[in-house]
């Protein structure tokens, strides 16, 4: 797994209003894992990604390696680096299995 890339057949967008709400909730110490901030459609079905998933998804442009994605995420979240890298790896692996991401 080197530079994951979004499946070009999937249409997607960031929900800005929702993203702002989630960031506000996180600042207030609330759990926001179950709140979608990115929507995407694959084979006619709509899916949502939460804030962290959405941020990884946005960075899967075929240009960044997993390490680089984790590097960028580390500037946004106060989480152990090893934990963050594992989370990125797990998430990307799952999305490759679903066919949402293409492994370069």
């Amino acid at each position, binding site marked *: 797994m080197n530079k994951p890339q979004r499946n070009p057949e999937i249409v997607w967008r960031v*929900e800005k209003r929702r993203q702002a709400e989630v960031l506000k909730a996180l600042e207030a110490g609330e759990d926001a894992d179950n709140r979608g901030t990115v929507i995407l459609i694959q084979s006619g*079905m*709509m899916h949502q990604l939460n804030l962290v998933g959405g941020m990884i998804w946005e960075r899967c442009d075929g240009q960044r390696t997993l390490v680089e994605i984790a590097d960028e995420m580390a500037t946004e979240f106060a989480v152990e680096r090893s934990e963050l890298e594992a989370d990125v790896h797990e998430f990307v692996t799952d999305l490759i299995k679903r066919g949402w991401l293409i492994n370069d």
Partner: protein
Amino acid sequence: MALYLLDTPVRLTWDFSTDPPSHAGNQLEVARHIADGGVFFVTLQGQPLLQSNIGELLRCLTAGGCQVLIACSGTAVELSNLAQVSTPIHQLLLDAARFIDVRNGVDTTLLQQAVQALRAIGYDPALMLTPQRRNLHLIPEFLRFCRDNKVGRFKLPNANIGDSFREYSTADLPRHQDLELFRKLWAESPQPTSELPALDIHDLFLWEILVPGQLQARSEYGGCQAGNSLGHVDLYGMVHPCAAWPEPLGNLVAESLFEVWSSPARFTVREQISVMPVGCRDCCDIASCLGGCRGLSRRLNQAEGERDLMCPGPRRQNPVS
């Protein structure tokens, strides 16, 4: 994750069903706002191919990332205009209404010619039939046509209320009594069993008849999406919650789609949808149906507690189990 209130619609229908307006510049502004709004799918319905600026509108929409579906009747003028279009079209929907003869049923020869003519210029059309009281009985025939002519998709969208909401032509909207007649007809008629087209059926109750025993397959259905993932734009750029819910929310000639979708009127619509119709109380299938088409039922079925027009009444026992 439950579907929350979206920034803008995901799917829009844009109506071109009556005389083309003279404000082509306004249409382009509407197209820009739709594209800027991040809408995934835009269905141009009515007769969009008769618009003189259709090429420009399509370029604007697709440049903004929209996938465009176009309805057409397969007339010579439409075909000629379509041949000039260089923008990729996500799907071409051949409106079956033109091929229905009141006395003789479906004019399959004319329909076949239209399909072949569209294929000759590089399109593989889906067939579209808006269900009405007078055409429900023709569905089996259209399905057979699709099978025999290798038409891969048959779309049965929800009925609209009138053309651009100018008049409420509701007499032809199918009711549950009509659906019951169709259920019997469907059960008795020889049904095409192989190589059926993919069915795209908006109405739950019609879907139950044509695709029986698969209610659980609609588990992803999140209820009426009017004013959320779904929206409708009329001929004048006015945005409505959906094609079956005529309520102006704002105009794309003057406002962005995000602004319209942030309006109090839009949130009021969603609040109204969140209240379960009185006529659906005690129904065991409410978790699957979620009240059906709320736009039509709200406007036209107050007498039955705003129950879906195609629903005969609350179910006490799940017919699937």
